[in-house]
């Protein structure tokens, strides 16, 4: 009798891999079967993720040490074999990925999965790559899973084809290939210096380095950090993002909303492990803080300057990355919990926003956005524009416009951070935690910078999204009432309701996330769980 629960940590990788492989064997015409497999796969992933969440939080009993699920592939002992580790942070991210995956998949079944071949297998492989990146406890496998998710994302990015998509995809691929090379160089250097690629073992070995070896290791960590910052869309490495996300089709852009967070997760994970021995530059402290501020500023300027709504959301993604990097760059552990809350909220909200915008764009007659600008500029009358209502399949939903309007307001509130939804809770707890960190005397300059930047980004969000809302809903006279199928409206409503749930249970969720932050601040338990032995003193002398 096999004990299935022992294999739990590897299931989030196995399930989408098998589902994607099965779908590849089926013809594209067997659409219903493919959709069935996809749905079953994401639901199973959600179940596994929730189960892991319960285990890592200690609610359910588990055989693992310190409630950190460790899976040794092939049962090779930890520093030598490949290891999967699911701790609290990983479990949270897995759940988030599964929730977003379900919403985008249901949305895609309405029509986008027929815009090109192999949408469903690529989608499963993307989920597999993202899950793997969250679970891996090994630096080289982090690279491999990054490549898996990127390879799938290249295919999805080009899904639906068209010149704009292919050109944007070209830039996206080149940027990410160069980032992968940086990742490889850094990993090779890390291995050359420390002789290990296991992240827990690395945390131990890094403390023993001294002299030129330590300098070489810090160089490697800096290159590693640059590679992660490219994925996390930190300024000045994020020029590819608005174009790539704006050109991708709606469900793809929505699932991409979590991909920048994979970079942030990697920074957080390695940063927390390397911190006791003094984290190298990119993984915390001043560098991350100032980079985050610059990213936030870039996002704000982009939000105010951009005209197209898809690109506007791209800049919202950038400014959310900026907020996270700034918050994680603050010293101490108090800000990390609220930052994680902000991360969850922004992933759900931005995913919903991408799905919503595509539906809203259908209300506009063809070429209206170009006309709106030139009409303003030249003060012309509205020329008669032919009615190009999109050929949408599905039942016409009554009060579609009302739904779109309400959903737009909800998403805007979530992204900006106004009450009553969870965006407000996220930003408010972030600000109060930031003020608490320096409660001893007057708050430091950094705290004021963080508070100021977050408030300014909120103001910029209000201006930009209000303008976009007015332009989308009020200023078009010949708006076409779109036909929405239920499977398109439901995912947006589901994601918004998730955020409502976050706001209602903000107390327990924040408490849980603060515990996660504390666990991250004390990587000893992670190291012990992986290496199955008490870790030697990190500052320790000769081995």
């Amino acid at each position, binding site marked *: 009798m096999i004990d299935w629960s022992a294999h739990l940590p590897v299931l989030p990788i196995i399930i989408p891999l098998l589902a994607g492989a099965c779908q590849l064997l089926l013809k594209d015409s067997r659409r219903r079967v493919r959709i069935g497999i996809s749905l079953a796969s994401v639901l199973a992933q959600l179940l596994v993720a929730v189960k892991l969440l319960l285990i890592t939080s200690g609610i359910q009993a588990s055989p693992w040490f310190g409630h950190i699920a460790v899976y040794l592939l092939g049962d090779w002992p930890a520093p030598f074999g490949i290891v999967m580790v699911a701790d609290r942070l990983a479990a949270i991210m897995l759940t988030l990925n599964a929730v977003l995956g379900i919403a985008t998949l249901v949305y895609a079944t309405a029509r986008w999965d027929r815009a090109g071949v192999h949408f469903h297998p690529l989608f499963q492989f993307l989920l597999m790559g993202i899950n793997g990146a969250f679970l891996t406890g090994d630096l080289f496998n982090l690279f491999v899973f990054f490549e898996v998710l990127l390879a799938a994302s290249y295919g999805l990015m*080009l899904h639906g084809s068209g010149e704009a998509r*292919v050109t944007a995809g070209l830039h996206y691929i080149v940027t990410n290939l160069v980032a992968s090379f940086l990742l490889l160089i850094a990993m090779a250097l890390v*291995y050359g210096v420390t002789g290990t690629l296991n992240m827990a073992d690395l945390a131990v070995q890094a403390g023993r380095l001294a002299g030129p070896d330590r300098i070489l290791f810090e160089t490697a960590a800096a290159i590693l950090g640059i590679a992660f910052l490219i994925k996390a869309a930190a300024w000045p490495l994020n020029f590819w993002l608005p174009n790539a996300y704006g050109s991708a089709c709606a469900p793809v852009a929505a699932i991409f909303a979590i991909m920048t967070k994979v970079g942030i997760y990697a920074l957080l994970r390695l940063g927390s492990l390397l911190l006791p021995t003094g984290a190298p530059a990119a993984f915390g402290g001043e560098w991350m803080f100032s980079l985050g501020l610059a990213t936030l500023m870039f996002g704000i300027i982009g939000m105010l300057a951009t005209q197209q709504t898809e690109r506007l959301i791209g800049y919202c993604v950038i400014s959310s990355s900026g907020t996270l990097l700034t918050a994680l760059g603050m010293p101490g552990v108090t800000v990390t919990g609220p930052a994680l809350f902000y991360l969850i909220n922004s992933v759900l909200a931005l995913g919903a926003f991408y799905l919503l915008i595509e539906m809203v764009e259908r209300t506009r007659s063809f070429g209206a956005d170009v006309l709106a600008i030139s009409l303003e500029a030249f003060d012309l009358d509205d020329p008669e524009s032919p009615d190009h209502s999109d050929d949408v399949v599905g039942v016409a939903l009554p009060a579609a416009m009302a739904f779109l309007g309400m959903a737009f307001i909800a998403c805007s509130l979530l992204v900006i951070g106004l009450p009553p939804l969870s965006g407000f809770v996220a930003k408010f707890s972030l600000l109060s935690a930031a003020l608490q960190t320096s409660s001893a005397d007057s708050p430091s300059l950094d705290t004021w910078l963080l508070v100021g930047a977050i408030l300014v980004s909120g103001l910029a969000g209000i201006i930009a999204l209000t303008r976009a809302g007015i332009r989308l809903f009020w200023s078009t006279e010949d708006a076409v009432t779109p036909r929405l199928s239920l499977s398109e409206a439901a995912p947006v409503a589901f994601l918004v309701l998730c955020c409502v749930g976050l706001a209602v249970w903000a107390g327990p969720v924040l408490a849980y996330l603060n515990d996660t932050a504390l666990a991250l601040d004390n990587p000893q338990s992670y190291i012990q769980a992986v290496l199955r032995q008490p870790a030697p003193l990190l500052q320790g002398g000769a081995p």
Partner: protein
Amino acid sequence: MELILSLAIGVLAGSGIWLILRPRTFQVIMGLSLLSYAVNLFIFSMGRLNIGAAPIIDAGKAADPALYADPVPQALVLTAIVIGFATTALFLVVLLAARGLAGNDHVDGREANL
């Protein structure tokens, strides 16, 4: 040997970076290939340079690690080659698609106005 290897890596990486910054898609893909060769050589060199040492334990020799080459970088390089090869092939397809859709081979899809 160290000098030759580091010169080779440096020349490959330098040419690769220069080519990536060029405006033609074909130059970019050549640059990516050269850069991937440089990176692969670099990973390989991280296992230290050995002459006449196999990465497989030989029953006839002593168990001294100094007699053998480090197998891990070789395994890593193999993985990196495979992944790099696949992504380059994918990039080639995208390059051709962009050429067909845009009608020129500029990376932005349109010629720069000079």
